[in-house]
């Protein structure tokens, strides 16, 4: 292994996991004890509590499924306990993932002689925050000191980009894993790799291909009279055996034209029955084609969203085991009209990319050597890109206080090959002791530099660190956020903090106001600040991913309704969330973000949701028929099919398949959001009317008080609304109406009487205020301000009154019980 560094990347997969090490020049796959590059993500715990991981555990998957667990990645972030009855223990999904990571760490030690302390672990691009948090927790349990998460498609692209010669243009990474599908659009230009956008399906993977075969096999088998039911827990063993056979048949059909599914002596309801079926490649492809089409629809949606036309892709990189299927390769190349990346291993590309990314993030996996705390050593704090496409990047640093010996006044960097050295940079004199040096790199290699400091008389001063390494290669742009994150408000709206695509890491602060008081000392009294993830403006249609709680028993002083709360949300590069709420009045900070799980999906809850959605769908469908709205009828037909699919998964959940339950939960949530869109479309005439009314009001205010620039913007907005009307794009009209509202408001409040009118409206509702005493006082202050013609004071009064007006309890319930506005 190179002296310059060792960077470890791990692909923690649903079916298999892999680990790679990058030394600054080459990527090496880490072999496990069996000599394989892929370690099955399978954990077994026997009666004595012994834990076995990987291929050795996988052998027991059929014979002892109760104590041998696979595919727990799909349950990451849920509260689902996974039982091992023989050892009488239950494990969380992240504890099992930790076992896999621990095993991979040991493999690195076997191969390279050290136990890695830092690593980059890949996660699907569309993982929700609780799922990412669970992955970080798994790494911590496995003994890693520090990890960063990387989105799988970004890792694949880095690996493909590292091995490619000079390349420019758009790429698509088609990543079909065991349990998830991700499509990512990337652009390379001048060594910069940029993620343009993501799309995907968190519940589409190779495993669904296996289930399609299982369902076919059950149907075929049923023709002989015997009935196997996926929803029946008593048939669990038979179904597992069928699934295993289906998986093997699928692999065989990648090469052969026909494969047999033979399972003699299966116990179905106490009777021994034989399964003997023959599956051809054509049949397999017919069964899997709808799933492949579903993935291609995601790709096309992604390309359309970013204006990338057909045939504009430079190449498609295939990632994941299922992409070896001839059907997948053929359909992807044909439909996306782009060549497939050659010479890349779809099974290990993610781990390879993660290891290269570890270098860009400066996460050297080697254990830190004991500090060189020699008496005469000065310490420097040095910052630089660990990997860069730039041949002349900057190295920045400063002298840290402490240490002993002569004080350095200059710093110089000398490349280890001795062929380049910087001029000595003076440590700046304004007491910061900082320096900035531009270095020269050798292309596509790790460049080691000696750090040489000198005292005022030119004597060398030993410094720590004494060397730094910069790898010349790619510059990877900050990973983009895959889903919008915001705070649910008490009126069921969302205050967006970070838009989808925002570069990570990110931090933002907004001021909110409480909608009710929080009494000091009362444990029952708590104010919830829900953090949600999703693209829709209604909070209830977004997923709750975290919550801060301001508890009465913890506040230093009682908080009145309308009290300001300054909320800061922060996301790190891997999308991990932290938040802090500051109560400015007392200076108190609340930081404990409740660890949320992906909601549980019990069969009863799923059945009730499915029933409610079915009724809504049926009612919308009848209505669409009555109105003769063909487009709505077609759209609802599609939703009906999705609902039927979700119902099948919900049934499988009754059979104890927790993964199918999560899949059904997600599908039902998405159907809910789509029905909401149909309902919005149905109210199209009302929306058009509202648009006309708002435009008329805005035109009048903007004409009277708007600047020429504002008048121009209003005219452009009117045109945009017209265009949206022509394409019946309700979401775009709503977006443009928000611009119109902003413009109209800005102009309206320039009217000298505007705040007085708003005051009268607010004062009329003061009787329903959440804090009567304060509202009464504000009304008095407002009247006095009007009498003095003090508009600034009046504005403050009105805004304070608004904050005291009650929220609609039903809207608040929908808004995840938010306590802020």
């Amino acid at each position: 292994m190179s002296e310059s560094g060792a960077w470890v990347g791990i692909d923690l997969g649903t079916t298999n996991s892999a680990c790679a090490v990058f030394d600054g020049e080459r990527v090496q796959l880490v072999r496990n004890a069996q000599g394989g590059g892929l370690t099955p993500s399978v954990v077994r715990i026997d009666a004595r509590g012994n834990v076995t991981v990987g291929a050795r555990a996988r052998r027991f998957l059929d014979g002892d499924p109760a104590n041998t667990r696979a595919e727990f990645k799909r349950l990451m972030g849920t509260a689902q306990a996974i039982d091992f009855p023989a050892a009488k223990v239950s494990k969380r999904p992240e504890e099992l993932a930790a076992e896999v990571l621990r095993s991979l760490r040991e493999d690195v030690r076997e191969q390279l002689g050290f136990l890695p302390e830092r690593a980059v672990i890949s996660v699907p691009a569309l993982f929700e925050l609780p799922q990412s948090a669970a992955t970080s927790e798994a790494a911590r349990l496995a003994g890693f000191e520090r990890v960063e998460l990387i989105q799988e498609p970004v890792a694949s692209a880095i690996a493909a980009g590292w091995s490619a010669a000079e390349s420019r243009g758009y790429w698509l990474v088609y990543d079909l894993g065991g349990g998830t599908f991700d499509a990512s659009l990337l652009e390379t230009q001048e060594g910069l790799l940029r993620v343009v956008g993501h799309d995907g399906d968190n519940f589409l993977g190779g495993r669904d291909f296996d289930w399609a075969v299982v369902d076919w096999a059950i149907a075929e088998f049923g023709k002989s009279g015997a009935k196997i039911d996926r929803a029946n827990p008593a048939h669990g063993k038979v179904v597992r055996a069928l699934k295993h056979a289906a998986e093997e048949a699928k692999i065989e059909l990648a090469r052969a034209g026909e494969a047999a599914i033979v399972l003699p002596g299966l116990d179905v309801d106490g009777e021994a029955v034989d399964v003997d079926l023959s599956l051809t490649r054509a049949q397999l492809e017919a069964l899997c084609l709808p799933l492949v089409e579903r993935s291609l629809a995601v790709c096309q949606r992604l390309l359309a969203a970013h204006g990338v036309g057909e045939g504009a892709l430079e190449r498609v990189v295939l990632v994941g085991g299922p992409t070896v299927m001839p059907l997948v390769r053929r359909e992807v190349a044909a439909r996306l009209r782009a060549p497939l990346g050659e010479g890349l291993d779809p099974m290990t590309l993610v781990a390879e990319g993660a290891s290269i990314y570890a270098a860009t993030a400066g996460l050297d996996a080697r254990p830190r050597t004991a500090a060189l705390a020699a008496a005469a050593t000065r310490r420097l704090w040095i910052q630089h890109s660990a990997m860069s496409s730039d041949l002349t990047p900057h190295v920045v640093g400063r002298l840290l206080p402490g240490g002993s010996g002569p004080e350095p006044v200059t710093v110089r960097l000398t490349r280890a090959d001795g062929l380049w050295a910087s001029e000595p940079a003076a440590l700046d004199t304004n007491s910061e002791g900082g320096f900035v040096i531009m270095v020269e790199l050798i292309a596509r290699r790790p460049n080691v530099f000696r750090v040489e400091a000198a005292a005022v008389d030119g004597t060398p001063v030993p410094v720590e660190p004494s060397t730094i390494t910069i790898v010349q290669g790619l510059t990877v742009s900050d990973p983009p956020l895959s889903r919008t994150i915001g705070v649910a408000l008490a009126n069921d709206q969302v205050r967006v903090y970070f838009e989808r695509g925002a570069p990570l890491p990110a931090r933002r602060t907004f001021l909110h106001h409480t909608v009710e008081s929080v009494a000091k000392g009362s444990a029952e009294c708590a104010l919830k600040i829900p953090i949600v993830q999703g693209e829709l403006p209604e909070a209830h249609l977004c997923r709750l991913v975290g919550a801060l709680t301001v508890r009465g028993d913890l506040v230093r002083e009682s908080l009145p309704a309308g009290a300001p709360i300054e909320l800061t949300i922060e996301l790190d590069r891997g999308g991990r969330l932290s938040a802090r709420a500051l109560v400015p009045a007392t200076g108190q900070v609340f930081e404990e973000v409740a660890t949320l799980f992906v909601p549980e999906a019990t069969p009863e809850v799923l059945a009730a949701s499915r029933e409610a959605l079915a009724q809504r769908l049926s009612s919308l469908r009848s209505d669409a028929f009555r109105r003769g709205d063909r487009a709505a009828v077609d759209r609802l037909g599609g939703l009906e099919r999705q609902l039927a699919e979700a119902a099948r998964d919900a049934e499988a959940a009754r059979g104890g398949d927790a993964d199918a339950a999560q899949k059904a939960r997600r599908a039902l949530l998405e159907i809910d959001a789509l029905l909401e869109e149909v309902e919005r479309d149905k109210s199209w005439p009302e929306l058009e009317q509202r648009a006309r009314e708002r435009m008329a009001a805005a035109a009048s205010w903007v004409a009277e008080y708007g600047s020429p620039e504002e008048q121009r913007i209003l005219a452009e907005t009117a045109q945009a609304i017209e265009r949206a009307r022509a394409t019946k794009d309700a979401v775009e009209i709503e977006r443009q109406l928000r611009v119109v509202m902003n413009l109209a408001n800005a102009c309206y409040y320039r009217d000298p009487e505007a705040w007085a009118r708003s005051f009268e409206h607010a004062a009329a509702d003061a009787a329903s205020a959440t804090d009567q005493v304060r509202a009464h006082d504000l009304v008095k202050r407002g009247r006095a301000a009007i009498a003095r013609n003090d508009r600034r004071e009046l504005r403050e009064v009105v805004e304070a009154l608004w904050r005291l007006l009650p929220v609609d309890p039903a809207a608040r319930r929908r808004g995840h019980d938010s306590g802020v506005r």
Partner: protein
Amino acid sequence: MSDADAHRELVENPFFVLGVEPGAARAVVEREGQKLLSMLEVGLSQAKTYATPLGTRVRTPELVRWALAELRQPERRLVHELWAATPVAASGDPVLDEKDACEAGWPEARVAYGWEPR
């Protein structure tokens, strides 16, 4: 576009944030961005503020990352180039907060941009 949005377009213009010319090559933008991130990380004070037509502003790592992300998108860069095509006030101005930024630094800016009547 509201006053606040337009105000932000100017004071948070990525070219001002990164301290590069609107015509700067992509490599120069990246180099300066990475340099500023490193300088902010080690806490060098010369990186902590930047000049805009509306006065000096506080530079944060989040703002630098956002500016880099904006300039990596060709269509977004074009918009920012238009906004940045104006002389920048000399550095050394007092650091302004949101409220008084419009009332100092370049008092005529709002009129020049058409947000207030001439």
